[in-house]
C-alpha cells in the first residue's frame, strides 16, 4: 500500500463535565449542535475537506452514541477500504490494560495504529471546538518549515489569555515558549490544541514520555514543553476565523446563537466547505398556519405551530400551538407542548416538555441557562427557574 502523507488522531474521550446534564449519557463530541450537527462533525468534516482520509477517533467516556454516530464514516466520506475512520477505545492487552490517562497516553496506547499506516505526519485533533479549518494548508506550512511539530495558533482577547495555553514565537513563527494557562500571559497567541507532528518524532516522544513517572501524559503539559526544551523545530501556524470552545453550557449556547442572523459568524452554507453530518431521513419542516419563526434556524422534520424566536431547532422537533420558544436551543426529537414557554433554555434530545411548562424566568440570561437532560419528561405545568438543571433519573 502507498504510504499516507498524513493521518489524523481525534481525541474524543472527554467527559465534558461542565456541560452537566448534556453529557451525562454522551461524550462531549457527540453533543448536538446547530440543529443538525454534533460537535464531532466539525473536526471530521474539516478532515474530509482537507483530503485527510484516515482518522482514528479515541473514545473513552460514554462511547455508545458516539460509536453509533460515526459508524462506517460514510457521511464524512470516510468509508474507505484503505484508511477511513476507526474508533479506538481503550483495550485489554496481554500485559493488562488501562484507561487513557491523558491525551498523550491515549495516542501512546494506539501506537500500533500509527505504525500500521506509517504516515509521514500525524495530525492531533480534539472534539470540543466549533471551527472550519483546512488542515492541508497547515500541513503545507509544517512541511515547508521542516518542522518537528506545528501548533495551530489563534489570537484571543488579552483578558481571556490566561484560560489558554499561551505561546510566543519569533518572526519566522518558530515557537520560543509555551505556558499552559499562565497567570501573567506573555502574549495573546493561544494554542488551539491542534498539532501536526512528524510521525517518527511523535512516536519517540510518546515512548519517552510514557517512561517518565512524573509526567501527566498530556500534550499541552508535557510533550510540547519537552520539545521546546530540546530545542526541536516547533512552529506556529496562524489561524484566523471562527473558533469556539463549546465546553460550557454558556459557550455552547453562544455558539448556537452565532449561527443566527443575516451574516452568521460561522457560515455553514458554503458549498466548497460543507459540514457533513449523519441525519435521519425526515421530510422538510412544516410551519403551520399559526406558526411563527423569527431569527432562527431549524432542520428537517420539525412541526412548528407555536412561536420560535432567536432559537435553534433540531431534527424532528415539535413546537405545539401557543408555545413560545425564545433564546433557546431545542435538540432533536423533543416536543414542546401547548402554551409552554421557554426562555434561555437548552433542551437535550428526545424530551417532552408538557403543556403550560415554564422554563426560565425574568432573571434568565446566557449565564443562567435552564438545562434539560436527554429523555426527560416534564409534567404539565412544571415551572423551572433560571439556571435550573433537570436530568432523567436512572
Amino acid at each position: 500500500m502507498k504510504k499516507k502523507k498524513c493521518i489524523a488522531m481525534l481525541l474524543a474521550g472527554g467527559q465534558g463535565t461542565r456541560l452537566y446534564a448534556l453529557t451525562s449519557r454522551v461524550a462531549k463530541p457527540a453533543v448536538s449542535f446547530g440543529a443538525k450537527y454534533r460537535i464531532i462533525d466539525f473536526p471530521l468534516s474539516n478532515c474530509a475537506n482537507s483530503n485527510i482520509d484516515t482518522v482514528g477517533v479515541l473514545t473513552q467516556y460514554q462511547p455508545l452514541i458516539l460509536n453509533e454516530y460515526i459508524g462506517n464514516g460514510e457521511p464524512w466520506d470516510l468509508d474507505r477500504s484503505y484508511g477511513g475512520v476507526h474508533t479506538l477505545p481503550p483495550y485489554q492487552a496481554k500485559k493488562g490494560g488501562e484507561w487513557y490517562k491523558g491525551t498523550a497516553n491515549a495516542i501512546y496506547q494506539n501506537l500500533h495504529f500509527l505504525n500500521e499506516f506509517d504516515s509521514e505526519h500525524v495530525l492531533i485533533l480534539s472534539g470540543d471546538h466549533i471551527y472550519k479549518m483546512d488542515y492541508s494548508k497547515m500541513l503545507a506550512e509544517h512541511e515547508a518549515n521542516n518542522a518537528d511539530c506545528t501548533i495551530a495558533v489563534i489570537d484571543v482577547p488579552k483578558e481571556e489569555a490566561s484560560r489558554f495555553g499561551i505561546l510566543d514565537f519569533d518572526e519566522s513563527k518558530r515557537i520560543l515558549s509555551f505556558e499552559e494557562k499562565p497567570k501573567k500571559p506573555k502574549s495573546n497567541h493561544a494554542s488551539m490544541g491542534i498539532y501536526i507532528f512528524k510521525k517518527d518524532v511523535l512516536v519517540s516522544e510518546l515512548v519517552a514520555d510514557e517512561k517518565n513517572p512524573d509526567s501527566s501524559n498530556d500534550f499541552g503539559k508535557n510533550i510540547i514543553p519537552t520539545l521546546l526544551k530540546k530545542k526541536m523545530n516547533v512552529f506556529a501556524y496562524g489561524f484566523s476565523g471562527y473558533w469556539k470552545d463549546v465546553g460550557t453550557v454558556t459557550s455552547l449556547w453562544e455558539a448556537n446563537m452565532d449561527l443566527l442572523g443575516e451574516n452568521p459568524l460561522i457560515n455553514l452554507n458554503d458549498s466548497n466547505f460543507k459540514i457533513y453530518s449523519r441525519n435521519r431521513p425526515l421530510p422538510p419542516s412544516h410551519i403551520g398556519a399559526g406558526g411563527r419563526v423569527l431569527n432562527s434556524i431549524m432542520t428537517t422534520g420539525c412541526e412548528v405551530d407555536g412561536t420560535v424566536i432567536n432559537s435553534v431547532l433540531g431534527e424532528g422537533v415539535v413546537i405545539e400551538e401557543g408555545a413560545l420558544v425564545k433564546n433557546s436551543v431545542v435538540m432533536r426529537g423533543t416536543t414542546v407542548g401547548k402554551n409552554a414557554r421557554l426562555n434561555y433554555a437548552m433542551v437535550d434530545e428526545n424530551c417532552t416538555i408538557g403543556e403550560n411548562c415554564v422554563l426560565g424566568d425574568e432573571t434568565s440570561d446566557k449565564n443562567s441557562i435552564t438545562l434539560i437532560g436527554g429523555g426527560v419528561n416534564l409534567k404539565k405545568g412544571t415551572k423551572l427557574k433560571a439556571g435550573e438543571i433537570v436530568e432523567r433519573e436512572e
Partner: protein
Amino acid sequence: MKTMGIVFSNIHDKELGELAEKRTLASVPFGGRYRLIDFPLSNMVNSGISKVGIITKSNYQSLMDHVGSGKHWDLSRKNGGLMILPPFGEEMNGLYNSRFEALKNITHFLKRSEETYVVMSDCDCICNADFADIVRRHVGHNADITVVYRAKDIKPDKERTILDIDKDGRVNKVTVTNKQSGVKNVYTNICVMNRLFLLNILENSAELGYKSFSKDVLVKGCKNYHIYSYEYKGYFASIDSMANYFKHSLELLEKNKRDSLFNSDGANIYTKVRDSAPCRLEDTSIVQNSLIADGCVIEGTVINSILFRGVKVAKGAVIKDSIVFQESEIAQNSRLNCVIADKQVRILENRELSGHATHPYYIAKNVVI
C-alpha cells in the same frame, strides 16, 4: 421469500410536459427534498428488498446522478443492490413503448436473478407501502400475480385500470377504460409476480399476443391466471400531468397526508443527502402553512408553498401557493402565485408571476426572469 424489485422510470414522461422534458419522470422533484423514484426505492428497501432494477429509456442522466451507487437507499450492495437497466440490443428495433416491451428488454436480467418474486412499481407511485406484506399475501393465495389497488372515487376523465374482485380477493375481470365513474378499485401500477411466471409470459409473448401489461396480461389473462388483489389504504398519489403534480405536491401541507407518507410505522423515505445547512428564517420572514427544506434562507413571505433545498427568498418577496425547486432565488418585492419554479431559477426584483391552481405557471430550469 426472496424478492427483487423493478421500477419503471419513464412512464408518463410525455404527459408531464416541461417538468420531464430534461429528466425522467423518476427524477422529477417532489415534496421539498425528494425525487419521485425515492418513494418506490424506499418502499422496496423498507420491505427488505436489496436488489432493484431501474428500467430507463431516455434522458436518464439526472436519474443516474440522483441514485448514484444507491448508497443513500442502502442499495450499494455486494450482492444485488441497485442496477440501472438502459435500453439494450438491436432486436427491439428502437425504444420500447409499454411496460411489457420494457420488461422483454430486461429478460436477461430476470433470468440471471435468483429471487422467487418480483415487485414492480411505477416511479410515480407516491406512497408508503409495505411490499413485504403484499408478497406474504401473494404467497398465501398461491397467486401468479397480485395487483395492488385502492378504492377511489373516479370521474370519466382519463384511462384507468379497474378491477372486479370476488370475496376472496381474486380478480375476476380487469377493464381498461376512461368511461366509468363512482368508487372503483383502481390498479396502482404496483404488482407482485413469481419471477418464473413473468419470464414465461415474456418468452411466449408472441404466441400469446401480449404487447401491454394491463391491456393484455391483466385483461386477457385474468381468466387463466391466478390474479389476486391487495388493497392499499394509505396515502397514494400518481403523477400524470402538471396540474395533478401541483395538486398532489400541495396536498403534503395537510398533516394527515404527510404523516401517512413520511411517518408510517417507522418506514422512512430516503433520498440523496446534500448536507445543506439548516434553514434560516430571518426577523422579517412570515411563513405560514409551508414546507421548508434545509439550506433555505427566508427574509420574505411564504404561504401555502413548498420550498426545496437552498431556496432564497429576499425581503418583501411573497410566495403563495407555489412550489420552488432547489437553489432558486426570489429577489426583493417579487410575487409568485400558483407557480412551479424549476431548479436554479432566478426571479429578479419586482416581478409578478401568476398561474392558476389548475394551470400552474411553470418556469424552466436556470431561467432568469
